[in-house]
């Protein structure tokens, strides 16, 4: 019959409310009596984070504290959410550098493309996720802030050398 509706009927004769409730009570009682402590006391105890966790950005620096960034513009190009603002300029030695480098961590999706694409291994994601700010403006990390951060860099996965970046 075209257009017919198949009605799935739960067999009432076998539906047992008392049994179901008793069974449910049994399960909850079991957990009540031996509470399985799945809770982690978060601020006191912390996770063992994977070295490949993609978190807050960090900018690598040379020994003299200058950012390694050469302002090539690949990270704003590859960024899928346009969260990187870069204005390159020429420094006193005639080298290209990032006069303005800002990452909007609020907009960032932590895909890690910027780290992957960086030709000088300057911008990195980091193994760090505890960010909280009182204003949206504070989420825009400038170059100074990115270089001052000191959490570990995120390790990129390399099929030929899984241990290192």
């Amino acid at each position, binding site marked *: 019959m075209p257009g017919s509706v198949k009605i799935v009927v739960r067999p009432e004769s076998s539906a047992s*409310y008392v049994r179901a409730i008793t069974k449910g009570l049994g399960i909850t009682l079991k957990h009540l009596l031996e*509470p399985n402590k799945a809770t982690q006391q978060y601020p006191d105890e912390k996770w063992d984070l994977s070295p490949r966790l993609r978190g807050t950005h960090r900018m690598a620096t040379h020994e003299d504290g200058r950012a390694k960034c050469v302002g090539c513009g690949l990270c704003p190009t590859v960024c899928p959410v346009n969260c990187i603002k870069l204005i390159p300029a020429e420094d006193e030695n005639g080298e290209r550098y990032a006069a303005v480098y800002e990452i909007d961590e609020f907009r960032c999706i932590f895909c890690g493309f910027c780290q992957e694409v960086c030709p000088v291994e300057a911008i990195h994601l980091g193994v760090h996720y505890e960010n909280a700010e009182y204003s949206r403006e504070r989420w825009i990390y400038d170059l100074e802030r990115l270089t001052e951060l000191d959490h570990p860099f995120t390790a990129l996965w390399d099929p030929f050398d899984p241990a290192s970046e």
Partner: protein
Amino acid sequence: MDPMTGTAFVIATTLKILVFFVLLLVFVALSTYFERKVAGFIQDRSGPNRVGPLGLLQVMADGLKFILKEEVEPGGANKKFFFLAPVLGLVPATVLFAVMPFASPAPTRWGLMEMIVADVPVGFLYVLAIASLGVYGIVMAGWASNSKYSFLGGLRGSAQMVSYEVALGMSLVPVLMLVGNVQMPEIVSAQQNFATGPAAYGAWFFLPLMLTAFVFLVAGLAETGRVPFDLAEAEGELVGGFHTEYSSMKFGMFFLGEYAHLITTAALITVFFLGGWDIPFWQGDNIRVLADGTVIGEPTWWKTLLTFGSFAVKTLILVLFFMWLRWTIPRFRYDQLMDLGWKVFIPIMMVYIMILGLAMYLLDEAGIPVGWQYSGALIVLNLIMMVTLIWGLDRGMIVKGATSRTRRRAGGIRGRMTPTAPSEVD
């Protein structure tokens, strides 16, 4: 020893009011902590554990938060009723404790002090009267908030309360039939095992009145408005139900009211069906004061404390049971809730009352005295009825599943929708 009279009675009553009111509120506050711990454990969590040792100061923190939070009053709200509703949510639950006998009478220098705030002659009629006031808080909150969610919550709340009020009242009728008195201390005494004085049944009423106890338990749970009967709140569909628009201490009063209700209901079940403050298998606590002032048994202070412990333990076990139930069972569907109240409990209670009356008549005719044989006969009768009821429930004949209506309707549309036989499904 004579019961207290005069000034001593007034002072004693005032003291009892103060002590037990404070005690009740402390228990209410602690039960919120208790519930969160129970919920935590059932869900494999820790529950509150950051404020104070074991999180015990969480109660204080919550209270502080309630007081310090901003009060929001929705535009278009009826100010008077909006303010009155939380008061009406909390007050009936606490006032119910006035007629609760907590312990055996205590001897004092000025006479025997009955451990009940007010031994009113109307007894549990007072309980029914005050308990039914609880619905006003919900209805008022729902109506005064000027919010559709609150309004729907209030509507549901009133319908539910009215429905289960009937079952609740009817489930107390068998108790009245056995005891022959509405006074609460008498009900407790009737469940004890006395050799002298008015007849006592020697068994807690949850045995000879098993079915009634079951109905009272469920109806009482419905009266507290807790899962699985929290349709007035129903955060899944009504945001917060009747208290959606409430904030700060006004919400806090609803919150306290819910737990006060919980404890009160547990205490009522204890008094009516679990022997009140009676300690099982011990005759030393068989103390009663007759209407003419005669005291049977030997009241002492340590017995008072012991019996109060018994009462508290029974009540807390019931509270725990309610909490356990809450974190296990999902919410009733609205039609199922109404079906259960009107189509199941009320007819069952009507039939039960008649059967019980018949049984009592037959037992009296047979000349069996009130006592353990009488109770035994009733227990057997109740067991049979209980098994029949559970068998019926268990087969889905009383509370129908969601598909039963569809099937009924499908069959009605002249075969246009052919239901598939159960064997073909799965």
